[in-house]
């Protein structure tokens, strides 16, 4: 079964006078500006806050040794150093000093394993919790969360991918409407949401369109849009988004420098700041991508450059979520599709390593200051201690969000599919 449940849009306490006036201006075109809907839900009370997830996606495969699983002085380090953190006995890579201070708020899984060593397949695996299978496209974690935790007060897409590479999170069997809404560097407005013509001309276009729609609907269903196409309904939602004040969350250009600067003057830093504001607006899942971790040559130097971007962004995100009282409701996950080999290759690079790599996570009810699993400091044993499978990570995060991982959805290919086939990781949930 393909679910045709839609990400509701409706009431909002962000609902502005400007939005109302805009809607009223073209109220004769009811399907384009569902004013009735907006007014009807205006008085709704704010619901209890539901949880969200922010995924900091380190695309290309970050090296666990230089980030969250250092082994200073051991054979796998090849000169990489470590620093102490706020939690006694936990060290992380020396390039992450700001994150180290927040170790009480973060936990590390150092023993994630998968069977996928190709970027595309491994990305699919990590984002869906399932290995690629020609018979079905699985739903990404973000799309499951969006599907399961709808919020009618949100007028913008609730599954967002900032700075996506070629494999952003997909809706899979849940449908394309659950695909992540993709945006670039949030230093400016989102593309395609700005009306390209003056309001008068827009109104004329809308009238033209209404005429064409009337002609097409004749002889087709009692209510073509409702019973079949949802074309005008979707267009109405797009219009609502175009008029929504919540759109401002995507654009960090007007944010106070004191709030934005700590994240770093980088697209990724701005992306993390936008993720914060989007979650604040009720968005369920935001993925922010930082590319460049595929370091087959000069590993230390290239990882170091990436880590310099990651550290201020990750730490500022956690701090800001805490200051705004959002951290208890927001799971932050940081990792990539796999790790990197414990040994350096002939050109000082590290290659792909899905046999024991790290992700950091915290917030949303996930305990901080924990370390799960361990890899071999000598780099001889391939299998890590306390192995955690990719699907276990999914199961744990879904559980933290209050979603039953074992819930089954009937897919379009007539096959029921569980949200996750993994097991909860012991000791991480409060």
């Amino acid at each position, binding site marked *: 079964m393909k679910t045709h449940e839609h990400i509701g849009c409706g009431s909002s306490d962000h609902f502005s006078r400007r939005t109302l006036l805009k809607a009223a201006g073209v109220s004769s075109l009811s399907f384009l500006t569902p004013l009735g809907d907006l007014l009807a839900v205006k008085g709704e009370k704010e619901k209890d806050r539901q949880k969200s997830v922010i995924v900091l996606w380190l695309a290309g495969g970050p090296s666990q040794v230089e980030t969250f699983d250092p082994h200073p002085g051991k054979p796998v380090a090849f000169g990489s150093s470590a620093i102490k953190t706020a939690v006694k006995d936990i060290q992380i890579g020396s390039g992450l000093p700001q994150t180290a201070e927040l170790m009480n708020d973060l936990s590390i899984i150092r023993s994630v394993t998968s069977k996928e060593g190709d970027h595309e397949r491994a990305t699919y695996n990590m984002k869906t919790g399932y290995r690629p299978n020609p018979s079905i496209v699985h739903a990404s974690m973000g799309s499951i969360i969006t599907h399961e935790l709808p919020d009618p007060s949100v007028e913008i897409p609730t599954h967002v991918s900032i700075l996506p590479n070629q494999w952003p999170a997909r809706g899979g069997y849940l449908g394309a409407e659950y695909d992540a809404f993709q945006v670039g560097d949030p230093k400016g407005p989102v593309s395609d949401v700005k009306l390209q013509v003056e309001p008068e001309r827009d109104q004329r276009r809308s009238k033209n369109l209404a005429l064409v729609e009337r002609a097409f609907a004749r002889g087709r269903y009692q209510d073509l849009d409702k019973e079949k196409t949802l*074309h005008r309904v979707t267009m109405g939602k797009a219009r609502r988004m175009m008029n929504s004040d919540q759109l401002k969350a995507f654009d960090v250009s007007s944010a106070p420098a004191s709030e934005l600067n700590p994240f770093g003057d980088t697209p990724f830093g701005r992306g993390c700041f936008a993720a914060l504001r989007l979650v604040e607006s009720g968005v369920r899942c935001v993925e922010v991508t930082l590319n460049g971790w595929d370091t087959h040559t000069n590993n230390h130097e290239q990882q170091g450059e990436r880590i310099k971007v990651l550290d201020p962004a990750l730490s500022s995100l956690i701090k800001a979520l805490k200051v705004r009282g959002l951290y208890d409701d927001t799971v932050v996950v940081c990792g990539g599709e796999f790790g990197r080999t414990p040994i350096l290759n002939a050109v000082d690079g590290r290659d792909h390593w899905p046999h024991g790599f790290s992700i950091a996570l915290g917030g949303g009810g996930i305990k901080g200051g924990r370390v799960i699993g361990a890899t071999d400091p000598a780099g001889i044993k391939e299998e890590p201690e306390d192995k955690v499978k990719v699907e276990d990570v999914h199961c744990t995060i879904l559980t933290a969000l209050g979603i039953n991982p074992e819930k089954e959805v009937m897919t379009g290919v007539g096959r029921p599919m569980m949200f996750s086939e993994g097991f909860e990781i012991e000791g991480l949930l409060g």
Partner: protein
Amino acid sequence: MSDAPPDLKRSIWRRNFTFLAFCLIASSAVIGSLWSTKPLPAPSSFDADDYEELDFQKVVGEIDFQFDRHWATNKINPVQQADSLLLARRLSLGLTGTVPSFEEIKALEETKEEDRVQWWLSRLFEDRRYSDYLAERLARAYVGVENGPFLVFRRRRMVDWISEEIQQNQPYDKIAKALIASEGTWTTQPQANFITATIDQNEDKGPDEIKLAARLTRAFLGVRIDCVQCHDDMFGDRWKQKDFHQLAAFFGEAEVSFSGVRDNEKNMYEYRYRRTPEKQKVLPIVPFSNELLPEEGKLRERLATWVTHPLNRPFSRTIVNRIWALMFNQPLVPTIDSIPLEGPYPPAMEVLVDDLIAHRFDLQRLIRVIASTKAFQLDSKSADENYPITREHEEHWASYPLTRLRPEQVVGGLIQATSLRTINAEAHIIPKLQRFFSQGEFLKRYGDFGADEFGEQAGTIPQRLLMMNGKLVREKTENNIFLNATARIGALAPTDRKAVEAIYLCVLTRRPTPEEYQAFVPAIEGLKGDERHVAIGDICWALLNSTEFAWNH
């Protein structure tokens, strides 16, 4: 020049004037030609008599008879026949992923009404867009859309090879056989990419028997035996886990080296079944119709012969279902790669299979037969507004199903609809380049359905935003007389009525309704320059953003 002698001055002025006059004549000729296009040459392969033959008519008649009986049994009245322009639009969208151009519509309207469908098909079959488009659709079923393993998988080469085979109308069984049993390198024998696509470079293994068996059963046999790769079928007792792995064992000899794909008799497929402690060697056995499997030969050759055997009807049913899906935007048997082995089958299926086998897997004939059936030629709306189309009509093929266009059809349609000239292999390099660059960017943002093309897909907010406010629609409706149909129509249409008509033909492949003429002709009447262009652009915008443009109908 003021000091020059009068004769010289006159000569210079004469020269300048001549040059100016020449430029004016040349530019008016160019601009004029933008509107009054040359008649398109008739397709060389078209011969109306071919489709009058008893053999062809008998097959179409049998399919129509089956549908008539089906509708009578289900007490449902089919709707009226669609007009020929709409049929041409469906065929273009289904077989080239775009809409007919203005010049093509004019050429089509000059042919006899009763010949138009077959004439149009002849034209499409001679157009490279047809083979390229069909090749991409088939490739998605064979290898998906992933980039696949580095260096040893060249998807583009494989698609080009399939396209070339289709362009030459090679029998479909020959194409399938070449893919399954291919040997050689991925560059010189592009069909070998069907095998190399499954290599897992990380695991340092050869071709993956499980992935190959999954692709094979779905793409060529229309069965989903791969669902039982881990356990026996929980939803019925048809397939056992062994069925799948015994089929996979036919790929057990395949290996890849620097000389490409080859078979090595020493290799053998091994698998650890559930509740067995260790891997065991698996013998190659086909899951049904064992009598059709040759006893001699390399494993993959035997498998390829078995799969494509004329008596192995699932093979034919699968391609019939896929071609039907392309032409109707939805398969005849609802799930494209899951067709029951023993039936029952919907009307048309077995007749089409018989005809395909009798005509040696000729895909062009299959398409021509389907296009000639009553089911394909029905309208998608009811002529009587008091009795509109219902879900039952579509369910029983008593009206042409209304389906959402796939992303590549939307962008293909958009780019063609905003040009008067046909953008095909013969087109000028500029529109071709523009199509190439615009298409990729648009698809990325609109969303690509990937390999699951015929599943039900919902429309999305980003899609509507892209069509309402996106760069491509904006560029395609702006005032650019050399590239955009709207600008040319605005400047060159002989009357306002003709201008409105031309926009409708370009975008929706139909003429406006009386109500639409009545609204839009006065809207551009008397307008000049930019004002006129803006008004025409706004009509075009509405058509491009309509349900009618976004849905196949």
